[in-house]
Protein backbone atom coordinates (compact mmCIF):
# COMPACT_ATOMS: atom_id res chain seq x y z
CA UNK A 1 0.00 0.00 0.00
CA UNK A 2 1.30 3.33 -1.05
CA UNK A 3 0.47 5.57 1.85
CA UNK A 4 2.47 3.57 4.31
CA UNK A 5 5.73 4.59 2.70
CA UNK A 6 4.73 8.24 2.70
CA UNK A 7 4.20 8.08 6.46
CA UNK A 8 7.74 6.85 6.89
CA UNK A 9 9.15 9.74 4.89
CA UNK A 10 6.82 12.17 6.63
CA UNK A 11 8.14 11.13 10.00
CA UNK A 12 11.68 11.57 8.78
CA UNK A 13 10.95 15.01 7.41
CA UNK A 14 8.84 16.30 10.23
CA UNK A 15 10.35 14.83 13.35
CA UNK A 16 13.89 14.57 11.99
CA UNK A 17 14.18 11.05 13.31
CA UNK A 18 14.19 7.77 11.50
CA UNK A 19 11.36 5.48 12.43
CA UNK A 20 13.08 2.51 13.92
CA UNK A 21 11.54 -0.88 13.73
CA UNK A 22 9.86 -1.47 17.05
CA UNK A 23 8.91 -4.69 18.72
CA UNK A 24 5.38 -3.45 19.26
CA UNK A 25 4.82 -2.93 15.53
CA UNK A 26 6.53 -6.20 14.62
CA UNK A 27 4.21 -8.08 16.93
CA UNK A 28 1.17 -6.62 15.22
CA UNK A 29 2.59 -7.51 11.83
CA UNK A 30 3.09 -11.14 12.87
CA UNK A 31 -0.41 -11.29 14.29
CA UNK A 32 -2.28 -9.76 11.36
CA UNK A 33 -2.63 -10.89 7.76
CA UNK A 34 0.22 -9.74 5.55
CA UNK A 35 0.04 -6.07 4.55
CA UNK A 36 -3.35 -5.61 6.18
CA UNK A 37 -2.24 -3.31 9.01
CA UNK A 38 -3.21 0.37 8.94
CA UNK A 39 -1.70 2.44 11.72
CA UNK A 40 -3.55 5.32 13.38
CA UNK A 41 -2.16 8.36 15.17
CA UNK A 42 1.42 8.03 14.02
CA UNK A 43 2.22 11.59 15.12
CA UNK A 44 0.35 11.69 18.39
CA UNK A 45 2.67 12.51 21.23
CA UNK A 46 2.43 13.53 24.84
CA UNK A 47 1.32 17.05 25.77
CA UNK A 48 3.24 16.94 29.02
CA UNK A 49 6.40 14.95 28.40
CA UNK A 50 8.54 16.06 25.48
CA UNK A 51 11.08 13.49 24.53
CA UNK A 52 12.60 12.32 21.29
CA UNK A 53 12.24 8.78 22.54
CA UNK A 54 8.50 9.15 22.70
CA UNK A 55 7.40 9.03 19.07
CA UNK A 56 4.11 7.19 19.25
CA UNK A 57 3.47 7.81 22.94
CA UNK A 58 4.56 4.23 23.60
CA UNK A 59 1.67 2.52 21.84
CA UNK A 60 0.99 1.41 18.28
CA UNK A 61 -2.68 1.27 17.38
CA UNK A 62 -4.55 0.38 14.23
CA UNK A 63 -6.69 -2.03 12.33
CA UNK A 64 -6.16 -4.99 10.06
CA UNK A 65 -7.42 -8.48 9.42
CA UNK A 66 -6.87 -11.96 10.80
CA UNK A 67 -7.87 -14.73 8.38
CA UNK A 68 -9.71 -12.04 6.45
CA UNK A 69 -11.77 -10.89 9.45
CA UNK A 70 -11.53 -7.26 10.59
CA UNK A 71 -9.90 -6.64 13.96
CA UNK A 72 -8.61 -3.66 15.91
CA UNK A 73 -5.30 -3.92 17.71
CA UNK A 74 -3.09 -1.99 20.03
CA UNK A 75 0.40 -2.91 21.09
CA UNK A 76 2.39 -1.19 23.81
CA UNK A 77 6.02 -0.45 23.17
CA UNK A 78 8.29 -1.15 26.14
CA UNK A 79 11.23 0.56 24.42
CA UNK A 80 9.55 3.97 24.68
CA UNK A 81 9.66 5.02 28.33
CA UNK A 82 8.86 1.52 29.53
CA UNK A 83 5.62 1.41 27.59
CA UNK A 84 4.18 3.72 30.23
CA UNK A 85 0.59 4.84 29.84
CA UNK A 86 0.06 8.56 29.50
CA UNK A 87 -2.86 10.73 28.49
CA UNK A 88 -2.45 10.41 24.71
CA UNK A 89 -1.48 6.75 24.98
CA UNK A 90 -4.85 6.12 26.58
CA UNK A 91 -6.67 8.29 24.04
CA UNK A 92 -5.20 6.27 21.20
CA UNK A 93 -6.41 3.05 22.77
CA UNK A 94 -9.84 4.55 23.43
CA UNK A 95 -10.16 5.59 19.79
CA UNK A 96 -9.49 2.02 18.68
CA UNK A 97 -12.09 0.75 21.15
CA UNK A 98 -14.68 3.26 20.01
CA UNK A 99 -14.25 2.27 16.38
CA UNK A 100 -14.38 -1.41 17.27
CA UNK A 101 -17.62 -0.90 19.19
CA UNK A 102 -19.19 1.01 16.32
CA UNK A 103 -18.21 -1.62 13.77
CA UNK A 104 -18.64 -4.75 15.90
CA UNK A 105 -15.04 -5.85 15.50
CA UNK A 106 -12.86 -7.58 18.10
CA UNK A 107 -10.07 -5.77 19.91
CA UNK A 108 -6.79 -7.57 20.44
CA UNK A 109 -4.43 -5.95 22.91
CA UNK A 110 -0.74 -6.72 23.16
CA UNK A 111 0.34 -5.50 26.58
CA UNK A 112 3.89 -4.65 27.52
CA UNK A 113 3.89 -1.73 29.90
CA UNK A 114 5.44 -0.71 33.16
CA UNK A 115 2.26 1.03 34.28
CA UNK A 116 1.12 4.63 34.59
CA UNK A 117 3.48 7.40 33.40
CA UNK A 118 4.39 9.10 36.65
CA UNK A 119 5.16 12.46 34.99
CA UNK A 120 1.62 12.73 33.70
CA UNK A 121 0.03 12.19 37.09
CA UNK A 122 -3.72 12.26 37.17
CA UNK A 123 -3.96 12.35 33.37
CA UNK A 124 -2.47 8.90 33.11
CA UNK A 125 -4.68 7.53 35.89
CA UNK A 126 -7.68 9.04 34.16
CA UNK A 127 -6.53 7.30 30.99
CA UNK A 128 -6.74 3.93 32.74
CA UNK A 129 -10.26 4.74 33.84
CA UNK A 130 -11.25 5.55 30.28
CA UNK A 131 -9.87 2.23 29.07
CA UNK A 132 -11.55 0.22 31.84
CA UNK A 133 -14.87 1.85 31.04
CA UNK A 134 -14.54 0.82 27.42
CA UNK A 135 -13.47 -2.69 28.41
CA UNK A 136 -16.68 -2.98 30.38
CA UNK A 137 -18.84 -1.45 27.69
CA UNK A 138 -17.39 -3.80 25.11
CA UNK A 139 -17.80 -6.84 27.35
CA UNK A 140 -20.41 -9.14 25.84
CA UNK A 141 -20.68 -6.97 22.72
CA UNK A 142 -17.39 -7.49 20.96
CA UNK A 143 -14.68 -10.05 21.48
CA UNK A 144 -11.71 -8.83 23.53
CA UNK A 145 -8.47 -10.82 23.60
CA UNK A 146 -5.38 -9.84 25.57
CA UNK A 147 -1.83 -10.96 25.07
CA UNK A 148 0.39 -10.18 28.02
CA UNK A 149 3.65 -10.01 26.11
CA UNK A 150 5.76 -8.44 28.83
CA UNK A 151 5.04 -6.78 32.13
CA UNK A 152 1.58 -5.67 33.06
CA UNK A 153 1.81 -4.20 36.52
CA UNK A 154 -0.34 -2.21 38.88
CA UNK A 155 -3.67 -0.90 37.68
CA UNK A 156 -2.77 -1.95 34.14
CA UNK A 157 -3.37 -5.56 35.13
CA UNK A 158 -7.08 -4.88 35.49
CA UNK A 159 -7.58 -4.06 31.83
CA UNK A 160 -6.81 -7.60 30.58
CA UNK A 161 -8.78 -8.98 33.52
CA UNK A 162 -11.86 -7.25 32.14
CA UNK A 163 -11.41 -8.83 28.71
CA UNK A 164 -12.57 -12.26 27.60
CA UNK A 165 -9.36 -14.25 27.27
CA UNK A 166 -5.80 -13.70 28.47
CA UNK A 167 -2.74 -15.25 26.86
CA UNK A 168 0.55 -15.41 28.74
CA UNK A 169 4.00 -16.39 27.53
CA UNK A 170 6.20 -18.54 29.71
CA UNK A 171 9.28 -16.88 31.25
CA UNK A 172 8.26 -13.57 29.65
CA UNK A 173 4.83 -12.40 30.75
CA UNK A 174 4.25 -10.85 34.14
CA UNK A 175 1.06 -9.65 35.77
CA UNK A 176 0.61 -8.33 39.27
CA UNK A 177 -0.95 -5.49 41.18
CA UNK A 178 1.99 -5.03 43.57
CA UNK A 179 5.47 -6.28 42.78
CA UNK A 180 7.82 -8.38 44.91
CA UNK A 181 9.64 -5.33 46.32
CA UNK A 182 6.51 -3.77 47.78
CA UNK A 183 5.30 -7.14 49.02
CA UNK A 184 8.59 -7.59 50.86
CA UNK A 185 8.40 -4.23 52.61
CA UNK A 186 4.75 -4.67 53.58
CA UNK A 187 4.43 -8.33 54.54
CA UNK A 188 8.02 -9.54 54.57
CA UNK A 189 7.30 -12.32 52.09
CA UNK A 190 10.02 -13.01 49.58
CA UNK A 191 9.07 -14.21 46.11
CA UNK A 192 10.55 -14.03 42.63
CA UNK A 193 8.86 -12.11 39.81
CA UNK A 194 7.96 -15.26 37.89
CA UNK A 195 6.63 -17.08 40.94
CA UNK A 196 4.51 -14.09 41.83
CA UNK A 197 3.02 -13.15 38.50
CA UNK A 198 4.48 -15.34 35.77
CA UNK A 199 2.54 -17.28 33.18
CA UNK A 200 2.31 -20.44 35.24
CA UNK A 201 1.39 -18.60 38.43
CA UNK A 202 -1.66 -17.17 36.70
CA UNK A 203 -2.49 -20.30 34.74
CA UNK A 204 -2.17 -22.85 37.52
CA UNK A 205 -2.72 -20.95 40.76
CA UNK A 206 -4.81 -17.84 40.31
CA UNK A 207 -6.77 -18.80 37.20
CA UNK A 208 -6.48 -15.25 35.89
CA UNK A 209 -5.01 -16.32 32.54
CA UNK A 210 -6.51 -18.76 30.06
CA UNK A 211 -3.46 -19.88 28.11
CA UNK A 212 0.22 -20.39 28.84
CA UNK A 213 2.29 -20.54 25.69
CA UNK A 214 5.95 -21.39 25.25
CA UNK A 215 6.90 -18.43 23.03
CA UNK A 216 5.53 -15.45 21.13
CA UNK A 217 5.11 -17.24 17.81
CA UNK A 218 3.18 -19.99 19.53
CA UNK A 219 1.06 -17.36 21.20
CA UNK A 220 0.11 -15.67 17.93
CA UNK A 221 -0.74 -18.96 16.25
CA UNK A 222 -2.84 -19.98 19.25
CA UNK A 223 -4.72 -16.68 19.26
CA UNK A 224 -5.55 -17.20 15.60
CA UNK A 225 -6.71 -20.70 16.36
CA UNK A 226 -8.94 -19.47 19.18
CA UNK A 227 -10.26 -16.65 17.00
CA UNK A 228 -11.38 -19.18 14.39
CA UNK A 229 -13.87 -20.58 16.92
CA UNK A 230 -15.40 -17.29 17.94
CA UNK A 231 -17.73 -14.71 16.44
CA UNK A 232 -16.51 -11.12 16.22
CA UNK A 233 -19.45 -9.75 18.15
CA UNK A 234 -22.62 -10.82 19.90
CA UNK A 235 -24.77 -10.56 16.76
CA UNK A 236 -22.52 -12.44 14.35
CA UNK A 237 -22.23 -16.18 13.97
CA UNK A 238 -18.96 -17.94 14.62
CA UNK A 239 -17.23 -18.86 11.35
CA UNK A 240 -18.37 -22.21 10.06
CA UNK A 241 -16.02 -24.81 8.70
CA UNK A 242 -16.43 -27.78 6.44
CA UNK A 243 -16.15 -30.88 8.53
CA UNK A 244 -15.05 -34.12 7.00
CA UNK A 245 -16.09 -36.02 10.10
CA UNK A 246 -19.42 -37.79 9.44
CA UNK A 247 -22.26 -36.97 11.81
CA UNK A 248 -23.25 -40.57 12.41
CA UNK A 249 -19.73 -41.80 13.16
CA UNK A 250 -20.10 -44.49 15.79
CA UNK A 251 -18.12 -43.86 18.99
CA UNK A 252 -17.31 -47.47 19.81
CA UNK A 253 -14.09 -46.42 21.56
CA UNK A 254 -16.18 -44.97 24.36
CA UNK A 255 -16.87 -48.47 25.63
CA UNK A 256 -13.15 -48.91 26.18
CA UNK A 257 -12.37 -45.39 27.39
CA UNK A 258 -15.04 -45.20 30.08
CA UNK A 259 -14.83 -48.11 32.53
CA UNK A 260 -18.12 -49.61 33.69
CA UNK A 261 -16.99 -49.85 37.33
CA UNK A 262 -17.99 -46.53 38.77
CA UNK A 263 -14.99 -46.34 41.10
CA UNK A 264 -12.52 -46.46 38.19
CA UNK A 265 -11.33 -43.18 36.68
CA UNK A 266 -10.58 -42.24 33.07
CA UNK A 267 -9.50 -39.28 30.99
CA UNK A 268 -12.51 -37.21 29.95
CA UNK A 269 -10.42 -35.51 27.23
CA UNK A 270 -10.50 -38.73 25.24
CA UNK A 271 -14.29 -38.75 25.44
CA UNK A 272 -14.45 -35.17 24.17
CA UNK A 273 -12.10 -35.95 21.31
CA UNK A 274 -14.21 -38.95 20.40
CA UNK A 275 -17.56 -37.17 20.38
CA UNK A 276 -16.74 -33.88 18.62
CA UNK A 277 -15.20 -33.26 15.21
CA UNK A 278 -11.81 -34.79 14.82
CA UNK A 279 -9.01 -32.75 16.48
CA UNK A 280 -11.32 -29.81 16.98
CA UNK A 281 -11.13 -29.43 20.76
CA UNK A 282 -9.33 -26.41 22.20
CA UNK A 283 -9.19 -26.43 25.99
CA UNK A 284 -9.11 -23.25 28.08
CA UNK A 285 -7.52 -22.81 31.51
CA UNK A 286 -5.90 -26.20 31.19
CA UNK A 287 -3.83 -25.91 34.33
CA UNK A 288 -6.45 -24.40 36.61
CA UNK A 289 -9.12 -26.42 38.42
CA UNK A 290 -8.34 -29.45 36.33
CA UNK A 291 -11.33 -31.32 37.77
CA UNK A 292 -13.42 -29.38 35.29
CA UNK A 293 -12.70 -29.12 31.57
CA UNK A 294 -13.89 -26.16 29.52
CA UNK A 295 -13.16 -25.36 25.91
CA UNK A 296 -14.39 -24.98 22.39
CA UNK A 297 -14.92 -27.78 19.91
CA UNK A 298 -16.72 -28.13 16.63
CA UNK A 299 -19.71 -30.27 15.83
CA UNK A 300 -20.24 -30.60 12.07
CA UNK A 301 -17.97 -27.58 11.67
CA UNK A 302 -19.90 -25.35 14.06
CA UNK A 303 -18.48 -24.02 17.30
CA UNK A 304 -19.73 -25.55 20.54
CA UNK A 305 -18.77 -24.67 24.12
CA UNK A 306 -17.87 -27.86 25.98
CA UNK A 307 -18.06 -28.25 29.76
CA UNK A 308 -17.02 -31.57 31.24
CA UNK A 309 -16.02 -33.12 34.54
CA UNK A 310 -12.59 -34.72 34.69
CA UNK A 311 -12.88 -37.87 36.85
CA UNK A 312 -9.09 -38.22 36.79
CA UNK A 313 -8.62 -35.14 38.98
CA UNK A 314 -10.33 -34.82 42.36
CA UNK A 315 -12.83 -37.43 41.18
CA UNK A 316 -14.28 -34.78 38.86
CA UNK A 317 -16.14 -33.07 41.70
CA UNK A 318 -17.19 -29.44 41.66
CA UNK A 319 -15.26 -27.21 44.02
CA UNK A 320 -14.91 -23.43 44.33
CA UNK A 321 -12.31 -23.05 41.58
CA UNK A 322 -14.10 -25.34 39.16
CA UNK A 323 -17.39 -23.55 39.79
CA UNK A 324 -15.90 -20.15 39.00
CA UNK A 325 -14.15 -21.51 35.93
CA UNK A 326 -17.30 -23.09 34.52
CA UNK A 327 -19.60 -20.17 35.38
CA UNK A 328 -17.47 -17.58 33.61
CA UNK A 329 -17.20 -19.79 30.55
CA UNK A 330 -20.96 -20.28 30.43
CA UNK A 331 -21.44 -16.51 30.68
CA UNK A 332 -19.07 -16.03 27.75
CA UNK A 333 -20.79 -18.62 25.57
CA UNK A 334 -24.18 -17.16 26.37
CA UNK A 335 -23.21 -13.63 25.44
CA UNK A 336 -21.72 -14.75 22.13
CA UNK A 337 -24.45 -17.27 21.21
CA UNK A 338 -22.29 -20.36 21.38
CA UNK A 339 -24.33 -23.48 22.23
CA UNK A 340 -23.28 -25.43 25.31
CA UNK A 341 -22.76 -29.17 25.65
CA UNK A 342 -22.12 -30.69 29.08
CA UNK A 343 -20.49 -34.06 29.50
CA UNK A 344 -21.46 -35.00 33.03
CA UNK A 345 -19.78 -37.56 35.24
CA UNK A 346 -19.89 -35.88 38.59
CA UNK A 347 -19.94 -37.17 42.18
CA UNK A 348 -21.17 -33.86 43.58
CA UNK A 349 -19.87 -30.70 45.19
CA UNK A 350 -16.69 -31.24 47.21
CA UNK A 351 -17.39 -31.49 50.96
CA UNK A 352 -14.94 -30.02 53.45
CA UNK A 353 -14.37 -27.37 56.08
CA UNK A 354 -12.17 -25.12 53.98
CA UNK A 355 -14.52 -25.28 51.00
CA UNK A 356 -17.47 -24.28 53.15
CA UNK A 357 -15.62 -21.44 54.81
CA UNK A 358 -14.26 -20.10 51.55
CA UNK A 359 -17.79 -19.92 50.25
CA UNK A 360 -18.64 -22.96 48.14
CA UNK A 361 -22.26 -21.93 48.60
CA UNK A 362 -21.72 -18.60 46.94
CA UNK A 363 -19.33 -19.83 44.27
CA UNK A 364 -21.27 -23.01 43.56
CA UNK A 365 -24.34 -20.86 43.08
CA UNK A 366 -22.53 -19.12 40.23
CA UNK A 367 -22.87 -22.23 38.07
CA UNK A 368 -26.57 -22.48 38.86
CA UNK A 369 -27.02 -18.82 38.03
CA UNK A 370 -24.98 -18.87 34.84
CA UNK A 371 -26.65 -21.96 33.42
CA UNK A 372 -30.13 -20.97 34.41
CA UNK A 373 -29.59 -17.54 32.89
CA UNK A 374 -28.03 -18.79 29.66
CA UNK A 375 -30.40 -18.72 26.72
CA UNK A 376 -28.23 -20.50 24.18
CA UNK A 377 -29.00 -24.14 23.34
CA UNK A 378 -27.99 -26.26 26.33
CA UNK A 379 -27.49 -30.00 26.08
CA UNK A 380 -26.36 -32.32 28.85
CA UNK A 381 -25.07 -35.85 28.38
CA UNK A 382 -24.87 -37.89 31.59
CA UNK A 383 -22.18 -40.49 31.19
CA UNK A 384 -21.99 -42.57 34.33
CA UNK A 385 -23.30 -40.56 37.23
CA UNK A 386 -24.76 -37.24 38.28
CA UNK A 387 -25.29 -36.84 42.00
CA UNK A 388 -26.77 -34.18 44.20
CA UNK A 389 -26.44 -30.46 43.63
CA UNK A 390 -23.99 -31.05 40.81
CA UNK A 391 -26.72 -32.89 38.89
CA UNK A 392 -29.00 -29.89 39.26
CA UNK A 393 -26.27 -27.55 38.06
CA UNK A 394 -25.01 -29.55 35.12
CA UNK A 395 -27.83 -31.72 33.84
CA UNK A 396 -31.28 -30.95 35.22
CA UNK A 397 -34.26 -30.10 33.06
CA UNK A 398 -35.45 -27.80 35.81
CA UNK A 399 -32.54 -25.46 35.18
CA UNK A 400 -33.55 -25.05 31.58
CA UNK A 401 -31.50 -27.65 29.74
CA UNK A 402 -33.13 -28.12 26.38
CA UNK A 403 -32.15 -31.75 26.05
CA UNK A 404 -30.88 -34.14 28.69
CA UNK A 405 -29.35 -37.31 27.31
CA UNK A 406 -28.14 -40.24 29.39
CA UNK A 407 -26.20 -43.39 28.71
CA UNK A 408 -28.16 -46.53 29.39
CA UNK A 409 -26.08 -47.35 32.48
CA UNK A 410 -26.04 -43.86 34.01
CA UNK A 411 -27.11 -43.13 37.58
CA UNK A 412 -28.86 -40.04 38.87
CA UNK A 413 -29.41 -39.70 42.60
CA UNK A 414 -29.07 -37.48 45.63
CA UNK A 415 -25.94 -39.39 46.60
CA UNK A 416 -24.05 -42.59 45.83
CA UNK A 417 -25.69 -45.89 46.76
CA UNK A 418 -23.25 -46.79 49.56
CA UNK A 419 -23.46 -43.39 51.18
CA UNK A 420 -27.24 -43.44 50.99
CA UNK A 421 -27.44 -46.87 52.60
CA UNK A 422 -25.08 -45.80 55.37
CA UNK A 423 -27.07 -42.64 56.01
CA UNK A 424 -30.48 -44.29 55.94
CA UNK A 425 -29.40 -47.16 58.21
CA UNK A 426 -26.97 -45.28 60.43
CA UNK A 427 -28.00 -47.20 63.58
CA UNK A 428 -28.19 -50.70 62.19
CA UNK A 429 -25.13 -50.52 59.98
CA UNK A 430 -22.64 -51.08 62.82
CA UNK A 431 -24.16 -54.45 63.55
CA UNK A 432 -24.33 -55.55 59.93
CA UNK A 433 -21.64 -57.66 58.33
CA UNK A 434 -19.85 -56.50 55.18
CA UNK A 435 -21.80 -58.95 53.12
CA UNK A 436 -25.10 -57.67 54.41
CA UNK A 437 -24.12 -54.09 53.62
CA UNK A 438 -23.13 -55.08 50.12
CA UNK A 439 -26.44 -56.80 49.63
CA UNK A 440 -28.28 -53.74 50.87
CA UNK A 441 -26.34 -51.45 48.52
CA UNK A 442 -27.19 -53.74 45.65
CA UNK A 443 -30.87 -53.69 46.51
CA UNK A 444 -30.83 -49.92 46.92
CA UNK A 445 -29.20 -49.50 43.55
CA UNK A 446 -31.79 -51.63 41.86
CA UNK A 447 -34.62 -49.80 43.55
CA UNK A 448 -33.52 -46.19 43.24
CA UNK A 449 -30.63 -45.83 40.79
CA UNK A 450 -31.94 -47.73 37.82
CA UNK A 451 -31.83 -45.31 34.89
CA UNK A 452 -34.92 -46.85 33.32
CA UNK A 453 -36.85 -45.98 36.47
CA UNK A 454 -35.57 -42.40 36.14
CA UNK A 455 -36.46 -42.39 32.49
CA UNK A 456 -40.08 -43.08 33.43
CA UNK A 457 -40.19 -39.45 34.49
CA UNK A 458 -39.67 -36.62 32.01
CA UNK A 459 -36.26 -35.78 33.39
CA UNK A 460 -34.37 -37.60 30.66
CA UNK A 461 -35.24 -36.90 27.07
CA UNK A 462 -33.11 -39.50 25.41
CA UNK A 463 -31.51 -42.74 26.54
CA UNK A 464 -28.70 -43.81 24.27
CA UNK A 465 -26.00 -46.40 23.88
CA UNK A 466 -22.48 -45.11 24.30
CA UNK A 467 -21.60 -45.48 20.65
CA UNK A 468 -24.41 -43.17 19.54
CA UNK A 469 -23.20 -40.21 21.62
CA UNK A 470 -21.88 -38.18 18.70
CA UNK A 471 -24.90 -38.66 16.51
CA UNK A 472 -27.36 -37.83 19.30
CA UNK A 473 -25.57 -34.62 20.27
CA UNK A 474 -25.07 -33.54 16.66
CA UNK A 475 -28.71 -34.05 15.75
CA UNK A 476 -30.01 -32.31 18.85
CA UNK A 477 -27.68 -29.35 18.31
CA UNK A 478 -28.95 -29.10 14.79
CA UNK A 479 -32.50 -29.17 16.08
CA UNK A 480 -31.84 -26.45 18.62
CA UNK A 481 -29.91 -24.19 16.27
CA UNK A 482 -32.94 -21.97 15.70
CA UNK A 483 -33.66 -21.51 19.41
CA UNK A 484 -34.96 -17.98 19.93
CA UNK A 485 -34.01 -15.56 22.68
CA UNK A 486 -36.56 -14.39 25.17
CA UNK A 487 -36.34 -10.61 25.41
CA UNK A 488 -36.18 -9.37 28.97
CA UNK A 489 -36.83 -6.00 30.50
CA UNK A 490 -34.56 -6.34 33.51
CA UNK A 491 -31.31 -4.38 33.54
CA UNK A 492 -29.23 -7.29 34.68
CA UNK A 493 -29.49 -9.92 37.36
CA UNK A 494 -27.48 -10.07 40.55
CA UNK A 495 -25.09 -12.96 40.01
CA UNK A 496 -23.47 -14.07 43.29
CA UNK A 497 -20.00 -12.75 42.41
Amino acid sequence: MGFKITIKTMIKKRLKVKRKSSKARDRIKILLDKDSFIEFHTFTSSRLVKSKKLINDAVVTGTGTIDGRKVYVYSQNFAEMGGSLGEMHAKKICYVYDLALKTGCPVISILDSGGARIQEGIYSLDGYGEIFARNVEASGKILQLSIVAGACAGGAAYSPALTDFIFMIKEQSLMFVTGPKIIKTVTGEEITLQDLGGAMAHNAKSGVAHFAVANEDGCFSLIKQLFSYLPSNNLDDAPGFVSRDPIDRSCKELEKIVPIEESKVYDMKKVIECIFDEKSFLGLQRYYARNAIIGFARMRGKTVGVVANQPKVKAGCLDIKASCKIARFVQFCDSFSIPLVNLVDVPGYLPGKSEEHEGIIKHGAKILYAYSNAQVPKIALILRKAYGGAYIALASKALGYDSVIAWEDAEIAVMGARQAVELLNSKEIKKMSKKEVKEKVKRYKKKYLDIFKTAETDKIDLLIERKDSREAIARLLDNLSTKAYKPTNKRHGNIPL
Partner: protein
Amino acid sequence: MKNSLKRIKISDKIYIIKGSNSKLQVSINGKTKVFSRKQITDYEKGAEKTYPKIDEELGNFQGDKVCKVSEIIGIVSDIFTKKGQYVKKGDLLLSISAMKVENEIISPISGKVVKVYIRKNQKVDEGQKLISIKR
Protein backbone atom coordinates in the same frame (compact mmCIF):
# COMPACT_ATOMS: atom_id res chain seq x y z
CA MET B 1 -10.30 -16.83 -12.58
CA LYS B 2 -11.32 -20.38 -13.16
CA ASN B 3 -14.71 -21.42 -11.92
CA SER B 4 -15.45 -25.03 -11.24
CA LEU B 5 -18.53 -26.79 -9.94
CA LYS B 6 -18.70 -30.04 -8.07
CA ARG B 7 -21.50 -32.12 -6.61
CA ILE B 8 -20.83 -34.41 -3.68
CA LYS B 9 -23.31 -36.70 -2.01
CA ILE B 10 -22.67 -37.58 1.61
CA SER B 11 -25.32 -39.81 3.19
CA ASP B 12 -28.62 -38.15 2.28
CA LYS B 13 -27.30 -34.65 1.71
CA ILE B 14 -26.11 -33.15 -1.53
CA TYR B 15 -23.27 -30.62 -1.35
CA ILE B 16 -22.72 -28.30 -4.27
CA ILE B 17 -19.32 -26.68 -4.23
CA LYS B 18 -18.56 -23.81 -6.57
CA GLY B 19 -15.03 -22.56 -6.50
CA SER B 20 -12.75 -19.96 -7.95
CA ASN B 21 -9.15 -19.23 -7.04
CA SER B 22 -9.99 -17.23 -3.96
CA LYS B 23 -13.61 -17.97 -3.04
CA LEU B 24 -15.49 -21.18 -2.45
CA GLN B 25 -19.26 -21.29 -2.42
CA VAL B 26 -20.86 -24.27 -0.75
CA SER B 27 -24.57 -25.06 -0.99
CA ILE B 28 -26.02 -27.66 1.29
CA ASN B 29 -29.70 -28.46 0.79
CA GLY B 30 -30.43 -24.98 -0.46
CA LYS B 31 -28.40 -23.05 2.14
CA THR B 32 -25.35 -21.27 0.78
CA LYS B 33 -22.17 -20.15 2.50
CA VAL B 34 -19.10 -18.52 0.99
CA PHE B 35 -15.65 -19.28 2.33
CA SER B 36 -12.43 -17.64 1.38
CA ARG B 37 -9.81 -20.07 0.19
CA LYS B 38 -7.51 -18.94 2.95
CA GLN B 39 -10.01 -19.80 5.64
CA ILE B 40 -10.23 -23.34 4.42
CA THR B 41 -6.57 -24.00 3.93
CA ASP B 42 -5.85 -22.49 7.31
CA TYR B 43 -8.38 -24.77 8.91
CA GLU B 44 -6.85 -27.75 7.27
CA LYS B 45 -3.42 -26.67 8.34
CA GLY B 46 -4.73 -25.95 11.82
CA ALA B 47 -6.23 -29.38 12.10
CA GLU B 48 -2.98 -31.05 11.36
CA LYS B 49 -0.76 -28.65 13.20
CA THR B 50 0.20 -29.98 16.56
CA TYR B 51 0.29 -27.25 19.12
CA PRO B 52 2.95 -27.35 21.82
CA LYS B 53 2.00 -30.35 23.84
CA ILE B 54 1.35 -29.52 27.43
CA ASP B 55 1.71 -32.09 30.12
CA GLU B 56 -1.23 -30.67 32.01
CA GLU B 57 -1.54 -33.29 34.59
CA LEU B 58 2.04 -33.54 35.59
CA GLY B 59 3.00 -29.93 35.05
CA ASN B 60 6.55 -28.86 34.64
CA PHE B 61 8.83 -30.13 37.32
CA GLN B 62 12.21 -28.57 37.06
CA GLY B 63 13.69 -29.73 40.32
CA ASP B 64 15.19 -33.12 41.04
CA LYS B 65 12.94 -33.99 43.91
CA VAL B 66 9.18 -34.09 43.76
CA CYS B 67 6.82 -34.45 46.64
CA LYS B 68 3.33 -35.49 45.62
CA VAL B 69 0.61 -34.01 47.80
CA SER B 70 -3.00 -35.04 47.99
CA GLU B 71 -5.42 -32.88 46.02
CA ILE B 72 -8.42 -34.15 47.90
CA ILE B 73 -9.54 -35.35 51.33
CA GLY B 74 -9.90 -39.12 51.34
CA ILE B 75 -8.64 -42.48 52.52
CA VAL B 76 -5.55 -44.18 51.12
CA SER B 77 -6.94 -47.36 49.66
CA ASP B 78 -3.82 -48.86 48.17
CA ILE B 79 -0.10 -48.14 47.89
CA PHE B 80 1.72 -49.68 44.96
CA THR B 81 5.27 -48.58 45.71
CA LYS B 82 7.78 -48.98 48.50
CA LYS B 83 10.64 -46.87 49.75
CA GLY B 84 13.71 -47.37 47.59
CA GLN B 85 11.79 -48.62 44.60
CA TYR B 86 12.39 -47.15 41.15
CA VAL B 87 9.36 -45.77 39.33
CA LYS B 88 8.82 -44.49 35.83
CA LYS B 89 7.05 -41.29 34.79
CA GLY B 90 3.35 -42.05 34.57
CA ASP B 91 3.47 -45.05 36.93
CA LEU B 92 0.62 -45.52 39.37
CA LEU B 93 1.93 -44.76 42.86
CA LEU B 94 -1.12 -45.06 45.06
CA SER B 95 -4.83 -44.58 45.05
CA ILE B 96 -6.97 -42.47 47.32
CA SER B 97 -10.59 -43.29 47.83
CA ALA B 98 -12.63 -40.09 47.81
CA MET B 99 -15.92 -38.89 46.37
CA LYS B 100 -16.96 -42.47 45.50
CA VAL B 101 -13.97 -42.85 43.23
CA GLU B 102 -10.48 -44.33 43.38
CA ASN B 103 -8.26 -41.31 42.63
CA GLU B 104 -5.03 -42.46 41.05
CA ILE B 105 -1.82 -40.71 42.01
CA ILE B 106 0.64 -40.88 39.15
CA SER B 107 4.37 -40.31 39.20
CA PRO B 108 5.35 -37.03 37.56
CA ILE B 109 8.97 -38.09 37.03
CA SER B 110 11.10 -41.19 36.73
CA GLY B 111 13.19 -41.85 39.78
CA LYS B 112 13.59 -43.46 43.15
CA VAL B 113 10.97 -43.34 45.89
CA VAL B 114 12.67 -41.54 48.79
CA LYS B 115 9.89 -41.57 51.30
CA VAL B 116 6.33 -42.74 51.70
CA TYR B 117 4.56 -40.55 54.23
CA ILE B 118 1.29 -42.45 54.55
CA ARG B 119 -0.05 -45.89 55.43
CA LYS B 120 -2.83 -47.89 53.87
CA ASN B 121 -6.33 -46.99 55.12
CA GLN B 122 -5.04 -43.71 56.54
CA LYS B 123 -7.11 -40.56 56.17
CA VAL B 124 -5.38 -37.79 54.21
CA ASP B 125 -6.16 -34.11 54.01
CA GLU B 126 -5.89 -31.81 51.04
CA GLY B 127 -2.28 -30.74 50.68
CA GLN B 128 -0.92 -33.56 52.84
CA LYS B 129 2.38 -35.08 51.73
CA LEU B 130 2.03 -38.53 50.19
CA ILE B 131 5.26 -39.64 48.62
CA SER B 132 8.52 -38.12 47.48
CA ILE B 133 10.56 -39.17 44.50
CA LYS B 134 14.08 -38.24 43.52
CA ARG B 135 15.37 -38.26 39.98
